[in-house]
């Protein structure tokens, strides 16, 4: 029995490359668990806001035992930062209390493109992240975003309740939170060497924000 407890709120997965499929595994496991628990089928319950063509259908199919696992997932791809921001806004309209999971791989990537004037980049990205983070809070569901760029990861970190680092080592990718190694296994080429209990470990060690701080929106706004 796989049991993966992603926390509600925004989680940043700091991935080694934009093509990383770690997030695919995470999402598919979550969906599979719901299906096993007999919770799926009530319509869309997971939304994937894509960037840089991370949502390759083949990669997703590879992660699941049957295509039906993916039936509750809805994907839309953004090709510009403007579209990305529009999709974030669109999700706020589509989400409801049954929404289980939001995913946004390469969440900050498009905001660095040339077709966006410099004055707009930070504000628009901040606005998207703020919205996603708020959605996680209000809906009480996990919002998983990834970034392969350290500089942008720092920005995203301001909005994240937790951050999981994926550090490249000679052995493969190691996961860390707060500088503490939590890896019990490594990626080897295209397959994942460890078992799911790793994730339980991993997510169990993620540091938490002070709940008082998390609940106090005013305080967060000031610190942001």
């Amino acid at each position, binding site marked *: 029995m796989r049991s993966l407890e992603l926390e509600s709120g925004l989680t940043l997965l700091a991935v080694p490359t934009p093509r990383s499929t770690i997030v695919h595994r995470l999402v598919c496991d979550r969906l599979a668990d719901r299906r096993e628990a007999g919770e799926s089928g009530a319509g869309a319950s997971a939304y994937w806001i894509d960037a840089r063509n991370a949502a390759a*259908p*083949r990669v997703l199919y590879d992660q699941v035992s049957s*295509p039906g696992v993916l039936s509750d997932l809805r994907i*839309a791809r953004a090709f*510009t930062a403007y*579209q990305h921001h*529009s*999709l974030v806004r669109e999700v706020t309209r589509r989400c409801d209390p049954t929404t289980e999971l939001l995913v946004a791989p390469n969440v900050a990537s498009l905001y660095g493109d040339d077709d966006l004037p410099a004055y707009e980049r930070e*504000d*628009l990205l901040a606005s998207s992240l703020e919205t996603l983070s708020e959605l996680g809070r209000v809906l009480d569901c996990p919002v998983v975003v990834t970034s392969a760029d350290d500089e942008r990861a720092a920005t995203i970190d301001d909005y994240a309740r937790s951050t999981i680092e994926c550090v490249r080592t000679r052995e493969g990718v190691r996961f860390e939170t707060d500088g503490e190694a939590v890896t019990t296994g490594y990626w080897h080429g295209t397959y994942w060497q460890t078992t799911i209990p790793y994730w339980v470990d991993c997510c169990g060690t993620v540091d938490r924000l002070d709940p008082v701080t998390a609940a106090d929106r005013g305080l967060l706004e000031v610190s942001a």
Partner: protein
Amino acid sequence: MSPYTFEFEDGTVREWTLTGDGAEPRLVEDYTPSLFVSGPDDALVDLRARLEDDPKVDATDRERWATDLHQAHVGDRSRVLRVDLERVDEVRTLAREIRGVHERETHAPGTFRLFDVDLEPGVRYCLDEGIDPTPGRELRPLRIELSEPALADGDVAALRLDGEPIDERTGDPAAVLRTLGRRLVRRDPDVLVVSHGELIPLIERRAAALGLEGVRLGRLPGWTQLAGENTYVSYGRAGHSPARYRVPGRAIVDTSNSFLWNQSGLDGLQYMVERTGRPLQEAAWGSIGTLLTSRQIRIARDRSVLAPWNKWEPESFTDVRTLHAADRGGFTFAPEVGFHETVHAIDFASLYPRIICEYNVSPETIDCGCGRPAARDGCGGDGTVETVGERNGRVPGLGYERCSHDGFLPDVLEPLLADREKRKRRLAADPSEPEAARLRAESGAIKWVLVSCFGYQGYRNAKFGRIECHEAINAYAREIALAAKRRLEDAGWRIVHGIVDSLWVTPRVPDPEPLDDVTAEIGETVGIPLEDDGSYEWVCFVPLRESIAPASEAGRAPAPPVDSSPDSDQTGTTIDPATEAGGVESGPAGALTKYFGKREDGGFTVRGIELRQRSTPPFVAESQRAFLEALDRERDPRAVCDVLGRRLRELRSGAVDPANLEITKRISRSLEAYSQRTHTVAALERYDRRGIDRRPGQSVRYVVVDDEARGSERVRLPFEGIRTYDEDWYATSVIRACESVVSPLGWDRRRIRTFLRDGRTPRLSTFVE
């Protein structure tokens, strides 16, 4: 007559109208260009108040416009804010301020969407004022040219007019410029066709410095720089656009920065002026994407749809199954590598634009939910095109519903398709040569826009692009290719290769149904004509370079064409963007776009191999042509290698004119950004040393003189007085060109070398070239 060229200065417009013997200016002082803003009502009220004190703003108003095609389609409108400006050159500044200052100070990012911002002044003016800038009489052009070294040296004495040097003898700049001035007065050209835009400041400044007051390029004194030079990346390729200039009363065509001029000349340009509403000078420097966008903006305006500044509209959320079905590329039949006799090429003429028109595919007709009936005139969602009776208006494989109502993209493309048809028909009627040249130029210009329209739908910044529309077009194309394959095979034909809209077929039974009948029937069924694109005595499909059999042994007989069962499903494959080419399991994999053949009406068709590559030096290209001729004559790779032997001897004797060994390469980055010591870098260093500016997107030309040498000594530039060349290096190039020709017959480089080393007596055919 309506005006044909426009200048904008200090808030006024000077429009020039052609007269019988020249052109007349008219000053328009009251033109106020507008941009539009959409957003929540209270935010717009607030913005309107803030803009009232802005000196750039002339007036503001609230109007009802459609902010996208969908809105217009369902009969809806938004109440937007119209902002009129004093000066056209301040539109972008104000747009940036609205987003960067006004929105930022009071509203969340992304509150305001802006429209009609990035239109070039001339295009905007014609659009707003309903002006058709098509020249009303035949234009008088004057060609002014200067070679690049002379331009770098600022040597105006080397100027050429209409292809002739102005003054070869004296080399006196003042005399040359005076002659130029006299010619300008006498001819009074409407269009200056210049080899480089930089000639404008060079000539004007030099004339001023020499005190030649009467010498000026415009119909009035003065000149303006419109835009600085710029390096950009488009579709992953670096491009360079040089600075642009304007002179009063004359349109400038910079041939170093005009795709259309180089493809279609003045005739093609004039045609595009009419169809896009871009005045001549703006049409000249426009890329195909820009031209297409201008036409779209014009037609959108007719439908009360504003042109968005940024691309905010995202695709809709969809499930993984649909995404998977939509994410496939064009349908392709893997080529059967080898030598094939009696091959017919057939193609769906203008496949993608015709799909758009025939099936009413447009951003606003896919899943519009407008309540109008779904389109029923098309191919169906049950996976077959043949079952006409069951058409249900859904995009095959994707399930998107397609509306029958008056699509925008068909409106953009139908007149172009019709114009092209008309020109092709007139050409077929054997018109006089000047007429034929004009028809060819126009037809060529249209073709480029038509071939780009599909890809442009998927371009991320296409103003009216939508990814679902792009996918739908692809889905129909696949369906149509499969339907054609089934019908052709039933009729006794075998597909030896196919790429999206073109098929190569050969009989698979002794007495197949007549091809014309079969193609006519297919065309009728799918609604897109399937045309005869020529018959071939033989065609060779070239293997991918890395799959050319390394194990081929000397003395082995030429490999027979790869035999694959016509019923095998492997003959059809969808290109997977990740793996590039679909392969045939046995035998070498074919390169999708490399082939050559001998047409039944004589002459060769060559694609993808060295002969067609821009960088190939003339000597290598000529050699490859000789190899093709030998193959055609003897149908034997040994005969081809005999010719190769002779070519190599010519090369080794040093008898080849270095001009025939010049290589042309497009540069992708600036000199400093190259990390490897390539020939291109060596050439760039030499250009740099001579003060000639080469930017990414431009080309370099060079001859390899010593590949083993260090740095810039490896090459020489064409104007550096080249006397020698690197024989070994060019010999390898020629052998590679030969390999391309004999590789379909199972020969590789090693076998060629072994054959040449044998030193047999050359056969008679060696000398027939």
